[in-house]
């Protein structure tokens, strides 16, 4: 099973890297995300001191410390860009998850899936290769995203270690595994790629905005807070922030537990339904 999965993963990655223009664009995507979201949604610029204050050095310094105090309360860092780019890693993973569905639909339509199904490989390896391909993509692209964010001013927590980076990576991988499982099982049953894209937009945007990925939950209208607090993306984003920028998490173990449990359920359900589709025609 492992051999077949790795062979199919080799194909997925080779296809990704082979499509030179698409590959380059996919590498640039995280940079564009950071530049657009991070720098245009620069909330901090709203707190520029008024002209009268700015001219007086003593006032300006008091004003600055007040703003920073407020920023710290809200974002757990004095810098919104730092807050946002760590959440962006999770949001980005969410959108990469769509690729599992897209490539399954393509394999179905191109007849490649039928060819795989007449070989003796375990059916689950077909499914697994799609999930793993997303994880590989997300790993490569998140690394680029993180490096670019740091270059653009993201401040990692002091004394960040390998364990923190590993923790952040694992959370991002969990998100990628969960969301790609979801789209994989939909795609085996769906007949058109539009279904996956439509569902993807319907699901991904609220998952991203009604979470702490881009804005702190406390700043949301109360109805949205309820959604955000139940949203697994919030748990993931909070955990990534904990590891990367040292922002405190309320329920560290609860967050991890819920995230792992949810992703485990999605993986099992997706694997089971996907294999069932492949065997029931």
């Amino acid at each position, binding site marked *: 099973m492992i051999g*077949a999965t790795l*062979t199919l993963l*080799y194909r997925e990655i080779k*296809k990704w890297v*082979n499509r030179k223009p698409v590959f380059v664009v996919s590498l640039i995507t995280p940079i564009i995300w950071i530049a657009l979201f991070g720098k245009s949604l620069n909330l901090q610029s709203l707190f520029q001191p008024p002209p009268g204050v700015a001219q007086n050095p003593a006032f300006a310094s008091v004003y600055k410390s007040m703003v920073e105090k407020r920023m710290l309360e809200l974002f757990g860092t004095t810098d919104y860009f730092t807050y946002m780019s760590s959440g962006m890693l999770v949001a980005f993973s969410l959108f990469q998850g769509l690729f599992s569905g897209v490539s399954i639909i393509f394999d179905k339509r*191109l007849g490649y899936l*039928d060819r795989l199904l*007449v070989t003796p490989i375990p059916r689950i390896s077909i499914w697994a290769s799609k999930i793993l391909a997303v994880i590989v993509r997300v790993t490569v692209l998140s690394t680029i995203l993180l490096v670019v964010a740091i270059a653009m001013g993201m401040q990692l927590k002091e004394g960040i270690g390998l364990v923190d980076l590993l923790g952040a990576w694992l959370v991002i991988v969990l998100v990628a595994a969960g969301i790609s499982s979801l789209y994989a099982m939909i795609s085996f049953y769906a007949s058109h790629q539009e279904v996956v894209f439509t569902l993807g937009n319907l699901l991904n945007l609220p998952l991203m905005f009604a979470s702490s990925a881009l804005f702190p939950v406390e700043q949301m209208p109360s109805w949205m807070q309820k959604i955000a607090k139940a949203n697994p993306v919030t748990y993931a984003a909070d955990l990534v922030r904990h590891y990367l920028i040292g922002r405190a998490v309320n329920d560290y173990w609860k967050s991890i537990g819920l995230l792992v449990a949810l992703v485990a359920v999605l993986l099992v359900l997706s694997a089971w339904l996907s294999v069932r589709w492949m065997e029931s025609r």
Partner: protein
Amino acid sequence: MSEYAIEVEDLRKVYPGGVEALRGVSFRVRKGEIFSLLGPNGAGKTTTVRILSTLYKPTGGVARVLGYDVVRESGKVRRVIGVVSQESTSDDEMTGFDNVYIQARLYGLSGEEARRAAWEALRFMGLENAANRKVSTYSGGMKRRLEIAMSLVHTPQVLFLDEPTLGLDVESRRELWKLILDLKRRGVTILLTTHYMEEADRLSDRVAIINEGRIIAVGTPEELKKKVGGEAIHIAPMDPQDADKIIERLKSHGYDVRKAGRIVVVKVDDASRRITEIIKLVEDVEVLEVGVVKPNLEEVFLLLTGRRLIEEEPSTTARIPTRR
């Protein structure tokens, strides 16, 4: 061990939605032979291949490949078969080599073995020079040959070819026929589907004619063609008025004779032996041409179903079969 590579008994398939694609299909394919399913579009050929290759489950009936049940022992069946489906199934974003190599790896070959097997299959299919090009640059004939290379790389004992020459030009078709016969010589059992009667006739040891989900005749091409009354001798007299004279003469000698335009058609079981006798009988008539016409599978199909294999083809080439 049974002498049959494929055994199909009363196979039925009803698709979700209610289409009854197979209504009780039975046939047996001997080891090492090329066996064709000949039938028009929608006859159920692809459905049969999909069930035999474990892709779809039958609604009823039993099918075995090399003794393994295609439903209960699908894993064992998959190890011994190769499938070339009607549609293209290669990945056209990758090179021909990669397509075949990945296929080899999926059958458990190690990296080195897979590379060697892939090159061998590509060479056998005459694709070694195009191996490192993306499949999207291949011609239709090359794509088909790549599909076969992909299906051969694990040296299957039974090969399914679903309409292998569909949409190919005459030259590529002939090339492919040669390769298919080469495969047979290597001992591969081949189940081929086609709606080209010439293809079935040339390649097959035996043919099953399939129509609307049922097998309506099985036999060697020769046996099947006998159904339309064996061979015929066509006599074209110099003077059309002599036709009646010829007919009368031959009838009095017990021949089955009829007129088709200005030609006299004599139905015989064994034309090459009868021809000298017939020529002697009409010695005194001036004859423009005498020829032996072999019946073809198209006529067999027409006789059995009243339909043509390829509906859109002009009917001018059709000859009226004798209905008995």
